C-alpha cells in the first residue's frame, strides 16, 4: 500500500521519469525540427539522396549513351536541360547517376571510421596502460600526414578503383574517430557515477554498455558528422585525380576531371558536377552544425 503522505502519481507519469534517457534524444529531435537551417539542409540532402537512389527510374536518358553531334550542348538545350558532356551524354542523367558513386564513396569511410574508431577508442580509453599507449601512438603516426596527402598517397599506391578509394579514406578517418572516442572515454571513466557503478559491483561489460558507450557516442557521432563533408570532397577529389572510380562510370569528381578541358568551349556545363559536390558537402556541414547545437556537444 502506498504511503499516505506520498503524492498520488499516475502510472503514465512514472514511466516518463523512468524513460528519462529517451527524452534526451526526443529533445534533440525536437530541437532539430525547430531549426530552419537544419530542415532546409536535411531536405536538400534527402532530395539528393533520393535522386541518386532513384536515378535508374527518373533519369531522362541513358548515362552512357552519347552523341557526337551533340557534344557540349549548353544549358537549356531542349531535351538536355543541363546540357551534355564532352561525349554528348546528358548531364542531368549523369549528375543523377554520379550522386550514387560520390555518396557511396564519401559516406562509407566515415561509417567505417565511426564503427571501428569507436570500438578502438573506447577499448583504448577503458583499458588504459600500455595497450592505450600502443594504440594511441600508432594513431599519432597517421596524424603525421594531412588527410588529403594520406588519402592520395594510399590511393596512388593501391591504384584506381572504388574499393581502393574506400580503403584509403577509411585509413584517414579511423584514427580521427579513435582520438575523439578515446578522450571521451577517459573523461567519462573518471566521473563519479562510473566509480559508483564499479563500487556497487558492476562488471566491465555493464559499465561499458550502460555508462561509457551512451556518453561517448554523442561526441563521436557529432565529430563523425563533421567529417562527412570532408570525406565527400576527398572521395570526389580522388576520382578527380583519376584515382577513384574509373570511366565510363558517372561520378561527380570524375566528371569534373573529364570536362575540365572543355571550359574553353562551354564554360558553365563543366562546372556543374562541382556544384553538386559543393551543395552536398555544404548540406552535411549545416546538418552537423545543427546536430552539434541540438545535442549541446562542444566540438
Amino acid at each position: 500500500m502506498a504511503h499516505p503522505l506520498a503524492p498520488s502519481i499516475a502510472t503514465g507519469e512514472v514511466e516518463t521519469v523512468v524513460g528519462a534517457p529517451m527524452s534526451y534524444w526526443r529533445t534533440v529531435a525536437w530541437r532539430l525540427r525547430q531549426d530552419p537551417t537544419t530542415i532546409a539542409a536535411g531536405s536538400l540532402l534527402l532530395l539528393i539522396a533520393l535522386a541518386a537512389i532513384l536515378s535508374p527510374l527518373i533519369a531522362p536518358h541513358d548515362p552512357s549513351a552519347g552523341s557526337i553531334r551533340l557534344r557540349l550542348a549548353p544549358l537549356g538545350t531542349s531535351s538536355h536541360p543541363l546540357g551534355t558532356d564532352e561525349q554528348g551524354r546528358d548531364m542531368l542523367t549523369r549528375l543523377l547517376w554520379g550522386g550514387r558513386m560520390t555518396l557511396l564513396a564519401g559516406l562509407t569511410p566515415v561509417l567505417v571510421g565511426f564503427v571501428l574508431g569507436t570500438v578502438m577508442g573506447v577499448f583504448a580509453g577503458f583499458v588504459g596502460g600500455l595497450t592505450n599507449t600502443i594504440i594511441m601512438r600508432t594513431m599519432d603516426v597517421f596524424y603525421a600526414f594531412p588527410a588529403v596527402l594520406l588519402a592520395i598517397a594510399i590511393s596512388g599506391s593501391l591504384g584506381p578503383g572504388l574499393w581502393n578509394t574506400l580503403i584509403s579514406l577509411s585509413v584517414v578517418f579511423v584514427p580521427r574517430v579513435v582520438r575523439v572516442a578515446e578522450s571521451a572515454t577517459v573523461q567519462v571513466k573518471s566521473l563519479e557515477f562510473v566509480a559508483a557503478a564499479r563500487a556497487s559491483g558492476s562488471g566491465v561489460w555493464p559499465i561499458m554498455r550502460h555508462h561509457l558507450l551512451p556518453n561517448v557516442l554523442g561526441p563521436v557521432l557529432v565529430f563523425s558528422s563533421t567529417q562527412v563533408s570532408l570525406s565527400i570532397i576527398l572521395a570526389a577529389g580522388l576520382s578527380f585525380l583519376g584515382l577513384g572510380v574509373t570511366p565510363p562510370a558517372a561520378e561527380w569528381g570524375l566528371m569534373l576531371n573529364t570536362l575540365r578541358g572543355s571550359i574553353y568551349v562551354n564554360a558553365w556545363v563543366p562546372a556543374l558536377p562541382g556544384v553538386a559536390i559543393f551543395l552536398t558537402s555544404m548540406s552535411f556541414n549545416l546538418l552537423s552544425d545543427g546536430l552539434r547545437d541540438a545535442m549541446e556537444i562542444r566540438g
Partner: protein
Amino acid sequence: MWAYVGRRLLLAIPTLLGASIIVFAMVHLAPGDPMSALMPVDASKADIEAARRAYGFDQPLPVQYLRWLGRVAQGDLGKSIATRRPVLQDVYAALKNSLVLAVSASLLSFGIGIALGLFAAFRQGRVLDKLLSAVAIVGVSVPHYWAGIILIIIFSVQLNWLPAMGAAAEGGAVEYLKHMALPTIALALIPLGVLTRVVRSAALDILAQEFVLALRAKGLGRAMVFAHVVKNAAPQILTVLGLQFGFALGGSVLVETVFSWPGTGYLMNLAIFQRDLPLLQGIILVLAMFFVVLNLAVDLAQTLVDPRIARH
C-alpha cells in the same frame, strides 16, 4: 618547461619512425611488381632477376626497410625511375614551389579568417555575424579543386585577366605573382572557412567567461577587452593554424593539378601515374617529416603562448 620540451622532442622520434614505416609499407604493399616499371618490356627473365638482386628487391621486407632507412638517414632517397635524377633533388625543387603556394595561401586565409572570426564573435547574433558565418560555411564546404576551375573560368577564360596554368619561370615578379594569384585563392578557401569558424567559437567561449565580465565591470575599454580575448584564444587558434598550414601544403595536390603548378602535388601525380615508386616514396616521406616537425613546432609555440600547457 624544458622537461616538457625534451619529452616532446623524444616523442617525435617514434612518430618519425612510424611515419617512415607507413611510407615504406604503402609503396611495398602496393600490387604489381616494382620491376615491371623499371625494366623494358622485352627484358629477359634472367636480366629481370639480376636487376631485382641489384636493387635489393629479393630481400625480405624488414631487411629492405632497414637498408632503405639507412640510406634515407644519409639523405639518399634513391633515383627516380622515370628521370634517373636523384629523388631528393626533384622533391627539393618541387617543395620550394609548393611552399610558396602554401605560405601565401596560409597568410591570406589566416589574416582574413582570424579577422572575420573575431568580427563575428564580437557581433554575435547580429546580421554581420550571420553573414560571416554563412561565408565561413561556404568556405569549408567548397571542393577546392572545383573552386580552382571556377576561378579559371571567370578570370582566365571569360575576363582573360590572369593565366590559368603553370608557374612563370621568366617575366619577373609581376608575372610570377599573376601566375600565383588563382591557385593561392583556390587553396586559401577551405582554411579561410575553418579559421573563421574556429576563431569565432574560441572567442565566444572566452567572451562567456567571468573574467571578461570582470574586465568590463572594471571599466576596461573595448580595445583592451579585445586584446585579452585574443590572448586567451591564441593557443587554440595556434593549433588550427598548424593543421591548416598542413592542409595547404598536403592539400595542394589537387589545386596544383588544376593549375599545373610544379610543386610536390604535381610531382606526386606524375609519380603515381608513371608508377615511379622511389619518387612517390620520396615525396611522401619528405612531406611526412615536414609535418612531424611542423606539429612539434606548433606544440612548442603553444607552450610559449600559454605556459600552463607544459605543466600537465
